[in-house]
């Protein structure tokens, strides 16, 4: 996994609540057996209409917005456990998703793919969404070490929470398999003591 360091980027606003993983990557695109190529179909049915024409009003199709930070409404990533959703977002080029709430499985999947889910307060999300929407060229700074997200030009910033173990993994590019494999002895001891 790639190391996550400080990120300075523009952001794309997606002011919709309860964005589920079927929207992030529809099921019909889950037939691939590797992790590549899902970015092309990220938010497919919001980006393209039934005749495969781009829907201009959708933020990802709006040329004024760009960047590797997605700012989305409450309860992002609900629904299916498909990790393809995280692969679609990283494949599209996102490194950070900001929302006021994330669904559990998506959050875990994102962290396992070096995509940082930043949960902010609803008040901060509203400010950030407004800022990004009206200042498409404005840059946002995410500092994982300090656990801060801020808009330098607008003096808004917030501290965010992240599990200390996961933070170490992201900053060093480790994953859980490395750790679990180092614990095989403990796991075998547990197995021999297990009755049911």
């Amino acid at each position: 996994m790639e190391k996550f360091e400080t990120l300075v980027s523009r952001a794309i606003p997606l002011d919709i609540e309860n964005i589920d993983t079927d929207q992030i990557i529809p099921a019909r695109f889950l037939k691939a057996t590797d992790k590549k190529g899902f970015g092309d179909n990220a938010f497919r049915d919001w980006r393209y209409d039934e005749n495969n024409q781009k829907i201009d009003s959708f933020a990802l199709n709006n040329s004024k917005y760009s960047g590797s930070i997605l700012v989305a409404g409450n309860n992002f990533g609900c629904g299916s456990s498909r990790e393809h959703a995280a692969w679609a977002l990283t494949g599209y080029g996102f490194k950070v998703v900001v929302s006021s709430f994330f669904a559990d499985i998506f959050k875990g999947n994102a962290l396992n793919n070096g995509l940082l889910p930043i949960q902010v307060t609803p008040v901060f999300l509203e400010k950030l969404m407004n800022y990004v929407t009206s200042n498409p060229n404005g840059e946002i700074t995410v500092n994982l070490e300090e656990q801060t997200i801020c808009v330098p030009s607008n003096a808004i910033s917030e501290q965010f929470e992240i599990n200390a173990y996961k933070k170490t993994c992201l900053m060093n590019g480790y994953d859980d398999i490395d750790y679990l494999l180092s614990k095989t002895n403990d796991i075998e001891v547990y197995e021999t003591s297990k009755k049911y």
Partner: protein
Amino acid sequence: MSKTLFDKVWDAHVVNTIDNGPQILYIDKHLIHEVTSPQAFNELRERNIPVFRPNQIVATADHNTPTLNQHLPVKDELSRKQLEQLAENCKANNIEFFGLGHKNNGIVHVMAPELGITKPGMTIVCGDSHTSTHGAFGAIAFGIGTSQVAQVFASQCLLLEKPKKLRVKVNGKLNKGVLPKDVILYIISKLGTNSGTGYFCEYAGEVFENMSMEGRMTVCNMSIEMGARGGMIAPDNTTFEYVKDREFTPKGQEFEDCVAYWKTLKTDNDAVFDQEFEFNGEDISPMLTYGTNPGMGIGINEFVPFESNASFEKALDYMDFKAGESLINKPINFVFIGSCTNSRIEDFRVAASYVKGKKKASNVTAWLVPGSKKVEAQIVNEGLKDVFTEAGFEIRQPGCSACLAMNEDKIPQGEYCVSTSNRNFEGRQGPGSRTLLASPLVAAATAIEGKIIDITKHLN
């Protein structure tokens, strides 16, 4: 210290705790399918890591399988390759595999319980969010991503923070025509789609105690639709009777010893939950969803509510419904009875009891997709197949089918489908499709009438 059912099962599976970090949780059973496992197998291969406990893994083909002509080669090339890859991966790693046509094949959350693979007190994971289904047996069961599938392959363990505990009690008796699906749709409509996030939910009270195992599975299945990673119901005699004598269940004294342990898994009287909710069974009506998440549900004779926010309006716009209107008499052209939520024999019995002697409306395409080969055979053996075919319903072969529309079973653009599945997200049943979630009874009645009816007025 007093413990909940969840604590008892969780604590019995903790291998180790990292200081200021997650716990190492041991996984008893790992269920896999074709869609979320290939990248995990690739990962192990690339890193030269063997599968640690292949005999604790069971595989089935379900998400991306055709529901017609399963004896023929799968037409869609990508689907065929994905299925072949699962077969190859299982063979190379000595993993039990119930492929298309195998007598044990079926939707992962239907086949594992009916074979006795699912047992009380277990930890069970699968790369599918509806793994919560198995919590009906008093197991800790939850969906995982593909990176976690690889972790379980490598170590039979996961690194997890212990979730918080939630209890939802429903006491009293259910009204006529109110099924387990209505109970869970009601709970989600009251609590919302993210109320359970960060929690494991225990369902308790008379309504669940009096429910069959099939009904309990329907309820636990949709725990994820309120955000909860899993749902659980304390194992009791209903559970033990269901589990007994199934193919993978221990027999004789070993079974008796298991039952003695399973009986200890109830929540202690003074155990504390982080959050509790209570509802009355009598308040629940047959339910229907009107929006694009499973929390957007109403009693079938209620009205679409008013709410002033952009996401709510976007949902109504997608569904082409208006705030304040009734859904009764809305014409419906598609009905789907199936999915890991409602494709067990009990679901087809309840649908058949309504359909018997009637004909489906001419405008309706009605698909019945059994959850497994065993359910498919039961439908025939119990004479339900004749009831359905005489009524004009189409019985297809087992699989996830139009629940997620990965295969050809898609609802056309703009059409409404009354569906017994679990998600009414935009495009879930095919691009532009509009899903109304309901019980098998409401779905069957819709197919007969060709429109939504107030089922409560049509019950003898």
